[in-house]
């Protein structure tokens, strides 16, 4: 199979996916603040999936057979739901952390007077 066997959109999507995975990998290697291994893993999982489905559309059909689902579109929709759920879970986790930080600030303020007294 040569590059001419692919449509333009397949090559474009594949290029974007590789670029995103590569740039995120670099950020992790450089130890950029906020970049964790789990975030990198999620990025690779999502964009590698996009890359595979773009270059090998028949792959979805093979997974369909494996999972016992209908045609490959159903499988794609199913996998998209799984990815959406994972992203939602991640977002909820981030919100929860932010909420926890807000509580810490509010607590510090509530205890300020008491701390000042105990320091004296």
């Amino acid at each position, binding site marked *: 199979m040569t590059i001419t066997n692919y449509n333009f959109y397949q090559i474009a999507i594949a290029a974007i996916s590789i670029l995103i995975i590569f740039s995120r990998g670099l950020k992790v290697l450089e130890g950029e603040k906020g970049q964790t291994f789990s975030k990198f893993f999620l990025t690779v999982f999502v964009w590698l999936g996009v890359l595979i489905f773009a270059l090998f559309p028949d792959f979805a059909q093979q997974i369909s057979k494996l999972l016992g689902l209908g045609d490959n579109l159903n499988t794609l929709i199913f996998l998209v739901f799984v990815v959406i759920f994972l992203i939602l879970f991640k977002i909820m*986790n981030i919100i*929860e952390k932010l909420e926890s930080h807000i*509580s810490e600030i*509010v607590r510090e*303020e*509530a*205890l300020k007077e008491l701390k000042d007294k*105990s320091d004296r």
Partner: protein
Amino acid sequence: MKKDNIFIVIPVYNEGSIVGSVIDEIKKAGYEKIILVDDGSKDNTLEVQEKEIVFLRHYINRGKGAATKTGFEAVKLLGAKILVTMDGDGQHDAGDIEKLVRPIVEEECDVVLGTRKFTVGEVPRIKILYNFVGNFFTWFFYGLWVTDSQSGFRAYSKKAIDVIDTKTDRYEYDSEVIREIKKYNLKFKEIPIKVRYTTYSKSKASKQGFLNGIKTVFKMLISS
């Protein structure tokens, strides 16, 4: 029993109409060290500052768990030997404090969980169901079965005060304490308590519906 080192922590949110009488009842039972954590109330809760208590205020509402944790931090600063947490809506009987504190004073255990009696007819059925679901998910996520995982009436020893470190802010807090008991291998005891299901407390409980329950379970999943 020496009551000077026993601190009572009451987290409150918009309980201005009843919290004054709760404080009076606790004082009548002989406990003077009371810490009230006002969790950003918008009613007249501020007025209880006039009573001789330690009054702490969250300037925005952060939830029962966050308010109780503030109480925990406060007692650490004040050097408490024993901490008792109780609700500010008048559900709990201050007369039960002694029952809860005794096993800790006698060094039998580190945490005493006040356990409500869930008898059909005496307790609203929906509360019985919520409690069972709460107990089940607490066991499922944290691996310890208790008969009342959602009770707010509890007593803690100095050791428990020092090690328990909760992260959640809202109602999932009560279950998180159970996780900490398991994590630090703290000795615990369950003691039956009286609960007053007044019209006021019943109207408040109805706010904790099905959706809040789902949210609580989800937060337990994240924190587990």
